[in-house]
């Protein structure tokens, strides 16, 4: 578990994502919470970089495309955004469940909008603390994600509880 780890500037948020990627393995699902502009996509860009997705590949916001897929890294990655989804039925139409089942690593922005995450998932909450300051909290929900949270905390040098 990570509580209120400070990220001073966008580079720190990106770096936190890059560190998280080192721990991830196929099947890991990360739910991202935070207001508009908190840095959910930025953290995911860090994860992509940490997985080794080539720099030439632009990891962009999935708000409109809903799901972006990235290959070329240590594991395949899907980046999902539920912001524009209005009804749970739409998730079936876009085939989200199959994507999360088949994916290597999944990062889901606005995951609190619909219950799409598997039982064992990591919740990462980014809060806006100042102009460029953010605080990052992470909680495991199951044995695997709890292990991920602990390892990530160690890498970040954050308070372990």
């Amino acid at each position, binding site marked *: 578990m990570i509580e209120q780890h400070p990220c001073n500037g966008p580079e720190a948020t990106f770096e936190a994502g890059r560190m998280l990627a080192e721990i991830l393995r196929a099947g890991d699902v990360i739910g991202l919470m935070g207001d*508009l*502009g908190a840095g959910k996509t930025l953290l995911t860009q860090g994860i992509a970089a940490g997985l080794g997705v080539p720099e030439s590949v632009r990891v962009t916001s999935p*708000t*409109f*495309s809903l*799901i972006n897929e990235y290959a070329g890294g240590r594991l395949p990655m899907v980046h999902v955004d539920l912001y524009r989804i209005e009804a749970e039925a739409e998730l079936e139409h876009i*085939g989200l469940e199959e994507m999360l089942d088949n994916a290597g690593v999944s990062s889901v922005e606005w995951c609190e909008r619909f219950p799409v995450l598997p039982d064992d998932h990591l919740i990462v909450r980014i809060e806006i603390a100042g102009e460029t300051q953010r605080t990052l909290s992470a909680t495991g929900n199951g044995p695997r994600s709890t292990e991920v949270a602990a390892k990530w905390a160690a890498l970040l040098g954050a308070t372990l509880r």
Partner: protein
Amino acid sequence: MLVLGLESSCDETAAAIVEDGHRVLSDIIASQVDVHARYGGVVPELASRAHVANVVPVIEQALNDAGVTLDDIDGIAVTQGPGLIGALLVALQTAKAIGYARNIPVVGVHHLEGHLSAIRLEDDYPPYPHIALVVSGGHTSLMRVDGPGALVELGATRDDAAGEAFDKVAKLLGLGYPGGAVVDKLAQTGDPTAYSLPRPMTKPETKLEFSFSGLKTAVLNLVRQQGLPEGQALADLCASFQATVVEVLVRKTRKAAKQEGLKHVQVCGGVAANSGIRAGLREAGEKDGFRVYVPPPIRCTDNAAMIAAAGTYQLERGERAGMDLNANSGLPLPSETSA
């Protein structure tokens, strides 16, 4: 040549009949709220992204409105990617099934090639090669269009698309989501110099790349520090934000036209309807000597007429997809070498 176009890459299920890659006989988009009024009330209320339920009704409506049957169709053009795999597959499998059953040739079209072909449905369209600025909720990129099926990306956004920035800033300003058009409207009565916002990616080393996420955060910080602006201050902030986005888009488009030595520029995508962008580019075109072409708003958002237009050129070149044609969520841009 009569071509049936099909599109289901993301939000819209759409079908259209286009003659000779230029004349639109019908153009049906399932989510269009006025679909009943415009097309005589055959299509029932259809849910967003319910492509499986929508695809046959939109095709029937497209044939009906065009006054043709499948016997008259010479080819089927379908979006192959990029997009959501589950969504893409609906139109693609339907196209293959119709093609197989009726012995009609099928081609797979790149979604962006479709957007760039929308202008070919107008009487006035740019010659090749030309520069294209694609600005929508999901895309912001500059391309050199050497010809049908020959696209070269010159630059693109590294984070948020311009249209997304408009919609999210609207949300931050309490104007609802998506509210890009509301920002545009309020901007008309505001002072674009009232607020100084960062102009992202304007240093020379950024080349033709874009970034709009930082601009969104700058508006967020303003609201956090000064509270939600109201009245004239709100209009001023909208105007300042819009002017900043327009300046960046215009600056990079001018740079692209100059760099490639081209005198014709098309703008497409949903944000091409923004008044500031149209005015800014027209003004820049007058200064630099390039002509600006913009498709009508209905052809700027996802539609199947543009897919039919793009597919017509592929069919005319003799392209034929086999039964193994598959949807590709990450389909690369068609370039001269792969065509």
